[in-house]
């Protein structure tokens, strides 16, 4: 009735990664999230670097943990205005003096157009803050909830009610 509708999904992600490395990454990520420690997050980053190349694929929203929201600020390295979902590639400080790339999956361009977005809404080099639900498998990817620009402007995702 409702649950095969706003999906974002596919098993392609796991194909990119070895099962052992994924488990190591996931365990490290879980520990990092539980403790919120930069040192643990650092080990998580290393584990993920060993495991993953790119998370850029197509996902079901069942791939994400809707009970959690992460907030990250970073620099847009790439903005993909693609079907079935848009993608924000974000370069983020790892808390250890380095950078890591996060790949955040958004909604479909058709819905975002109706919510006021366009293919020029974001630009590479721009600093933004994103809210998202993280992937269950611990890779550096997530399901986008909200984008805020450096000046605090919210780029919402809500579609206005249909005109009568």
């Amino acid at each position, binding site marked *: *009735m*409702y*649950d*095969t*509708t*706003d*999906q*974002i*999904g*596919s*098993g*392609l992600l796991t194909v990119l990664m070895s099962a052992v490395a994924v488990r190591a990454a996931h365990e490290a990520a879980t520990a990092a*999230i539980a403790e*919120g420690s930069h040192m643990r*997050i650092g080990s998580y980053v290393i584990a993920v670097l060993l495991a993953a190349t790119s998370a*850029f*694929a*197509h996902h*079901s*929203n*069942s*791939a*994400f*943990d*809707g*009970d*959690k*929201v*992460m*907030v*990250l*600020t*970073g620099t847009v390295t790439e903005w993909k205005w*693609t*079907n*079935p*979902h848009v993608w924000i590639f974000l370069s983020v*400080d*790892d*808390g250890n003096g380095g950078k890591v790339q996060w790949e955040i999956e958004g909604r*479909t*361009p*058709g819905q975002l157009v*109706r919510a006021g977005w366009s293919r020029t809404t974001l630009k590479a080099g721009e600093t933004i*803050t994103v*809210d998202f*639900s*993280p*992937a*269950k*498998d611990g890779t550096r990817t997530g*399901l*986008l*909830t*909200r984008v*805020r620009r450096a000046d*605090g402007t919210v780029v919402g995702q809500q579609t206005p009610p*249909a*005109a*009568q």
Partner: protein
Amino acid sequence: MSKNVTVFSSALLCLLFVSTSSLRAQGTSTPDFTGVYSPIDPFGQARARAAANPPATVVPSPSAGTGAGAVPPPRPVLVLDGREGRPDNAPKLKPEYLAKWEVIRKSRMAGSSEFDPNARCVSAGMPNMMSMTYGMEVQHTKDKITMYGELNDVYRRIYLDGRRPSQKVLDDPTFAGYSTGHWEGDTLVVDTVAIREDALFDTFSPHSDQFTVRERIRFTSPGVLEDRITVTDPKALLEPFTSVRTYRKVSAPNDELREFSCAEGLASVK
């Protein structure tokens, strides 16, 4: 006086135009469903369940940005992965099919998209494709209705010319199945058969090859279309299951579906 007559005549002409356009499909009192529609609250039930859950936990992250923490996070995007269990109002499956559903549920909870047709860019099939989450366009002629959905660029046809599914059709199930319709007053009654077994229906429920769908489609008020959907499956279901979807007709500039071309995302290999 002549001005009044002109105004009156214009009003009459307008009225005539409206009536003829809404009735032209059949030339009788049956309505014309042609138009572009937006679903009315397609996630209503799911949202209600999600609202009952505790709010999301904000995960500490290494780079939350200056002052970002001062802004409360919005509710997360609704993630339905089966952890909520099987709702009381879900279709009543027989044990064999309930066991199949449990396998599907565990796969989804683990984060897999194996059983999510939309994630694989294939049609959700009947009747789930009638969620029409991103909008629906209906073309209605005397002999045929074609419905297009933006989500996954799906479409289905409902034949109104009296034809019946041939054996060839019955032997070749598809996601949308094969639909024929007839009128009962202002209600279009549609029967759909030959639906693929792997096209899951409500709450990712599996069904058998004996799965059939009957819809009763009508305007409940001007511009509000209702589709009352009853599915029957003597092998998989303890009893028929009925759900109702509603759609609101939209007008310019919101009456254009956008291309979806889902495979673009699948072809992301560089």
